């Protein structure tokens, strides 16, 4: 099916060239990082994880969010999703590829990456994260590819795929659960030390993933002859509405527990993020923007009038995607490191090369997604004709 990606118009090739240029530039920055060390980033002894790990966390969510179309279609036989399941699965593939790359660029010694499988360490959550992420990538590749190929051949997908499809559903939950366990099992990091972290990650994932999928569906409808369908988009919008509401509810739960119990170790990080601590508060405007965007998202999505208007829906989904990205991509990681274990404050701001490398990883993800979606759209147009 890959040959389908070789036929395209000017804008298709132009877009690929733009992506390749970004990737090339970012690769140059990455070579610099390899030569100099992670010192070219804004990370420090106190904030030892930054933008890379934050974006990794966010994208695990996007990948897991794909299950929100897979589950209704395969478990509840919600036929309408048959048309877009493949879009969810391929979005998950692109997201997991980016996750793995973000881990790679975050390593101080990337050439030693294979030490993880060479010295398997089951007591480390990172070891399990490697397994679940690679497993999820494998599952989605196998399922997505074969289902699409069957569709192209006007046949039902192979029977042996069924078990893989069923496994992929809890597997999607597992990738974000294990990713949350990276953080929430650490003593002395009050911000992450909460049993609700995995559920919170999942709720924001089930909002961000489908919201992004809606935006992609609207885009595909605009630029191709394949229409993902109004009914499908509306059903996804309801998922986003519930998930983003649950996410904000979980945030309120966190704030209540921290502030009613009045335990400083738990309050300090939230204070740092939302009002600043001892005069430090570089993230304060961002965090309020995040809350504002999520609330706007809830209002527009829960209200049927605005949800059914697709232009408004696009705005709402954009608000959800950006709001959850700030919450997870900026606040969640550095928020857990400030103040540090000795109650000193070192703030974190990503540097330009760090942002450049991050953009490069996103460009690789966009490239993978473009190629995969190009295949999908071509097959769908072919079948229609």
């Amino acid at each position, binding site marked *: 099916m890959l040959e389908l990606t070789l036929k395209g118009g000017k804008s298709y090739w132009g877009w690929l060239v733009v992506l390749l240029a970004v990737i090339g530039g970012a690769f140059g920055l990455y070579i610099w990082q390899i030569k100099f060390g992670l*010192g070219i980033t804004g990370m420090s002894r106190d904030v030892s994880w930054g933008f890379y790990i934050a974006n990794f966390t966010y994208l695990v969510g996007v990948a897991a969010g794909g299950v929100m179309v897979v589950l209704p279609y395969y478990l509840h036989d919600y036929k309408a999703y048959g048309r877009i399941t493949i879009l969810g699965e391929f979005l998950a593939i692109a997201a997991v590829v980016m996750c793995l790359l973000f881990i790679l660029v975050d390593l101080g010694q990337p050439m030693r990456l294979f030490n993880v499988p060479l010295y398997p360490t089951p007591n480390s959550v990172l070891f399990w994260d490697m397994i679940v992420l690679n497993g999820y990538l494998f599952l989605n590749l196998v399922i997505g590819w074969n289902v699409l190929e069957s569709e192209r051949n006007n046949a039902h997908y192979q029977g042996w795929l069924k078990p893989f499809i069923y496994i992929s559903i809890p597997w999607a939950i597992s990738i974000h659960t294990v990713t949350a366990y990276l953080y929430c099992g650490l003593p002395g990091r009050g911000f992450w030390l909460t049993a609700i972290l995995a559920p919170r990650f999942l709720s924001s994932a089930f909002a961000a993933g489908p919201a992004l999928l809606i935006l992609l569906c609207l885009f595909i409808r605009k630029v191709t002859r394949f229409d993902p369908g109004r009914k499908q988009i509306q059903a996804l919008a309801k998922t986003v509405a519930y998930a983003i509401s649950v996410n904000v509810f979980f945030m309120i739960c966190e704030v209540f527990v921290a502030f009613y119990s009045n335990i400083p170790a738990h309050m300090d990080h939230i204070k740092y993020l939302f009002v600043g601590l001892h005069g430090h508060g570089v993230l304060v405007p961002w965090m309020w923007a995040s809350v504002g965007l999520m609330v706007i998202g809830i209002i527009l999505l829960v209200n049927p009038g605005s949800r059914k208007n697709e232009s408004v829906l696009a705005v709402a989904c954009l608000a959800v995607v950006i709001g959850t990205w700030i919450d997870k991509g900026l606040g969640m990681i550095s928020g857990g490191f400030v103040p540090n*274990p000795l109650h000193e404050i070192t703030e974190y701001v990503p540097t330009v090369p760090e942002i450049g490398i991050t953009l490069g990883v996103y460009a690789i993800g966009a490239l993978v997604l473009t190629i995969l979606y190009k295949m999908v759209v071509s097959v769908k147009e072919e079948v229609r004709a």
Partner: protein
Amino acid sequence: MEDSRRTFLKIAGISAMGLGANPILSAFATDEHTEAPAEEQAQTPAEAHAEAGAEQAPAAAGEHGEAGRVHVQRGSDALTAKQWAMVIDTRKLQTKDDMEPLIAVCHKIHNVPKLQNKHHEIKWIWETEYQHAFTDKMNQFLNQEVQHRPFLVLCNHCENPPCVRACPTKATFKRESDGIVMMDFHRCIGCRFCMAACPFGSRSFNFRDPRPFIKEQNKQFPTRTRGVVEKCNFCAERLAVGQMPACVEASKGAIAFGDLYDPESEVRQLLKTNYTIRRKQVLGTEPSVYYIV
């Protein structure tokens, strides 16, 4: 035509697989290499790796003979314990000037670089105020003298170390023979999970090549490369040749060091007769560094 293309693809595929597998296989080969002598000497693999790590690094860092080798491997005069522990009598270390020589000697013999950028700082042992060392024991109204007294902080060599739990490659491990939490600088992939896991901020990461920032290199101890984590090792290399840790030696009796599970040891005697505190013991990591206040 179709057939020959298929054959070509088959051969190409198999060769590509072979090329891909080669680095992995050679990694296995070197692994066996370092572990083989370990078995003869009845060590744990972890110890063997630490030893290998310690020996390779100085060889790479500079030229020196057999005499310059580091003895992490236990010698006949080695000091042993079930769990090494430290008792710091903070009453005897009142000022920064009292602590400066201890910190200096540690950082000197362990090739700890002096980096100006605070973000990239490497420290094995340093001094801080009571409110930072004992975040959970800070009172609004505290003995004035204690409040302003500097406290030494270092890796606690916890009995339940969260950093060891977090490490995905066993590059940091708790040495079974004496409870020291050690680092294999050659295995560390630089993921910094251990730094997130440590509730004491005891770990540092080499954000850049540390070697240009070491004033005077000690050839007896490895220097580190960029991209790996490091921390205090309770002077495992000195214990192995019958010497006390450098900070203990330089403390003129203010720091005691011994076996926590030997009732006759100096640390146990001190713990029996003095009221001591530990950092964040509420977290259950069981730090092995005790403070007499």
